[in-house]
């Protein structure tokens, strides 16, 4: 009687719930379009020169980068101070000098620029796996999938912008829109704009000047002459005529920027090895200063490894000298790792040990042979087996340190092997290899590296005193197949002072006696 009374209200409640609209919007019900973030570095190369190389003057000094175009040196980029004097990109070098005589001039270097852009791409991979490089000085990041992780677009933008100004010290333009071309246009315009849907693209792009378009000066002039100033003017023109006069490329570009036409971007592939280099115009002979630079390099590498989700078992430092061949220092760890602090400590041991031929003017860190990273979980409660595992980790750290200072060969494991010949029944191994050996009895704890010939004194064997035999003989005759055959009679003897010795009579060399071990 009670049962239906209980069930009925429950059913009603569940029906009511079903009729109500869900609180959270279902992401899968809406079409998901990509969201492209464009980062433009208008003065990338100039900032590389002024930020990283302290001899190149104060950042506030007027500086320009000069590129040779058809044999004529033209200004490629000008610093804020230089712009203050009226120097602009595209100006002749002579004209720039006329405006500002104490100008710092850097030569254009395409390699440096692309290298820095690649470094920035490696940095950007931490935000999204879909990064593409837009030469000469822009990056495109597809950030739709990363919004939730970073707590929304606003926080992501703040983080990226903070890193760029704080760590990299690059002036940059940021824009987010559903198409890559539109993002690049908006970022180039210098306004930090966020366009969240394709419908809003037209209004956001419409008032942008046409000089931002990837067209040559002649075409730009032609468009100007026809009265086109902004993109909106361009959209009003008939497409077929535009394609005939300015090429199909431009029309396709305009369509792509509005999302009518899909665009394919080449994804940035992380490099297979890490190389970072620092050079300075003065000489350093102090290891503490060197360690500081090495620390920077190692942290950079750790970040690279983290973004690749990799670890290394060896990296190599190259110390560059002005007037001497460079010195290589290999730092190895026993278990693959990406812990910068651990590698730094090992490098410290190496630097303490080596003698540098000359003061250092540069340092390079290379790490090839990346391995997949396997995280190790820490124990919440330390059970004996886990405590043993922890001890293995710390043993690795200790042995790395010892090896760094004493050399690779100084530290070894020992193992027993199945061989009757005493010398071959024992081995040094670099790493622990589980070997199965038969247990042999009556073996000394100390073995001499080489058997020591024993002399006879007054008819008795002599070693620190007359020897008397306690036990024996045990004949060992083996190894005839290997060329190192052994034919010996082993005895346990004692000297006058109480040491127990393992001696043998070599049956191959006219009964010469040898000392081979001590029963300690």
């Amino acid at each position, binding site marked *: 009687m009670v049962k239906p009374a209980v069930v009925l209200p429950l059913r009603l409640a569940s029906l009511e719930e079903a009729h109500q609209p869900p609180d959270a919007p279902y992401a899968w019900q809406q079409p998901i379009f990509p969201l492209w973030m464009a980062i433009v570095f208008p003065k990338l190369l100039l900032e590389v020169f002024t930020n990283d190389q302290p001899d190149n003057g104060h950042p506030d000094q007027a500086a320009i980068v000069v590129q040779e175009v058809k044999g004529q040196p033209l200004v490629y980029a000008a610093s804020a101070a230089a712009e203050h004097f009226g120097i602009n990109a595209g100006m002749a070098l002579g004209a720039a000098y006329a405006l500002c005589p104490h100008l710092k001039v850097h030569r254009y270097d395409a390699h440096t620029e692309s290298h820095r852009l690649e470094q920035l791409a490696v940095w950007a991979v931490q935000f999204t796996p879909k990064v593409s490089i837009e030469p000469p000085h822009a990056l495109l990041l597809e950030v739709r999938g990363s919004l939730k992780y970073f707590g929304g677009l606003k926080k992501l933008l703040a983080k990226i912008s903070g890193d760029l100004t704080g760590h990299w010290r690059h002036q940059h333009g940021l824009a987010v829109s559903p198409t890559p071309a539109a993002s690049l246009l908006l970022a180039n315009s210098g306004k930090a704009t966020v366009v969240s849907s394709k419908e809003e693209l037209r209004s956001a792009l419409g008032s942008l000047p046409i000089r931002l378009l990837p067209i040559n000066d002649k075409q730009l002039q032609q468009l100007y002459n026809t009265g086109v100033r902004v993109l909106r003017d361009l959209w009003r023109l008939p497409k077929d005529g535009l394609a005939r006069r300015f090429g199909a490329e431009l029309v396709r570009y305009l369509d792509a920027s509005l999302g009518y036409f899909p665009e394919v971007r080449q994804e940035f592939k992380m490099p297979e090895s890490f190389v970072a280099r620092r050079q300075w115009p003065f000489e350093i002979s102090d290891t503490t200063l060197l360690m500081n630079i090495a620390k920077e390099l190692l942290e950079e590498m750790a970040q690279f490894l983290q973004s690749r989700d990799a670890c290394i078992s060896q990296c190599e430092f190259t110390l560059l000298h002005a007037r001497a061949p460079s010195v290589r220092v290999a730092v190895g760890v026993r278990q693959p790792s990406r812990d910068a602090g651990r590698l730094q400590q090992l490098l410290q041991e190496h630097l303490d040990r080596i003698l540098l031929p000359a003061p250092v003017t540069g340092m390079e860190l290379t790490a090839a042979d990346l391995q997949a990273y396997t995280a190790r979980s820490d124990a919440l409660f330390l059970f004996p087996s886990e405590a043993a595992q922890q001890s293995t980790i710390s043993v690795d750290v200790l042995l790395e340190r010892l090896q760094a200072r004493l050399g690779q060969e100084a530290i070894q494991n*020992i193992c027993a092997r199945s061989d009757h010949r005493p010398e071959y029944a*024992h081995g040094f191994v670099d790493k622990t290899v589980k070997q199965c050996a038969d247990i042999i009895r009556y073996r000394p*704890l100390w073995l001499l590296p080489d058997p020591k010939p024993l002399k006879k004194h007054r008819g008795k064997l002599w070693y620190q005193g007359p020897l008397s035999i306690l036990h024996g003989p045990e004949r060992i005759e083996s190894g005839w197949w290997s060329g190192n055959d052994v034919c010996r009679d082993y005895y346990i003897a004692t000297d006058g002072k109480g040491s127990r010795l393992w001696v043998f009579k070599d049956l191959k060399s006219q009964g010469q006696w040898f000392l081979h071990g001590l029963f300690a």
Partner: protein
Amino acid sequence: MMRHRYALPSQSVGLFEPKQNIATIKLQTNTLVVKTMNEQVEKLLQHNPAIWRMSDFQRHAVHGITTGYPRLDRILPERGWPKNALVEIITAQWGIGELKLLLPLMKSMTEQKRYVLWVSPPYIPYAPALAEAGVDTDYVIVIKPEISCKDALWSMEKALQSQACGVVLAWLNWLPNGVVRRLQLAAESGNSLGVLFRQFNHKNSPAALRLQLNSSLGGLQLQVLKARGTHRYQSIRLDFPCH
């Protein structure tokens, strides 16, 4: 006696004087001083682990790591090897049974998967003999004797500090002033056991336990030169059967 001496001058004062006499006041202050001193000592003992009382060892029965030889355990104050300290073993010559003394310790350490580090041993530690004694050679690491004394000392100190090894054995002949103390401190801070083999006896060593070994017929004469926690330095004879 004290009461009388102090009470003497005030004897003329009546017994039931309402005023307290000087002697009782003095006595009270004396007990107060003793009391506060005791409190201070207790406080010091509580806050500084480096200061200990002889009675602590008996009362708390601090248990060390068993040596594997019950007779030896009995004469050591912690009933075994100390847990975080430096042990000095003085033996005039090698090969009288000094390693055999430590085999049970090494066996139990490697069974617990803890490493045994040998720093510059005079000869090769022979793996088949260790295996026969039950020591897992996978957990035996040898630092070859070709390194300099300074490096050997450095290795031992680092190994003791790192808590990575169960026991660190070292054969060092060059031990300048203060080095033994440094090793002892490293063992204490790293909570590990270090064993130092020496051929000569030096006085005033800060090691927590010092043993002198001498060979005797078919065994080992073992004399405790110093042991933290006891002042009765006994000597025993361990029989090692000659196979």
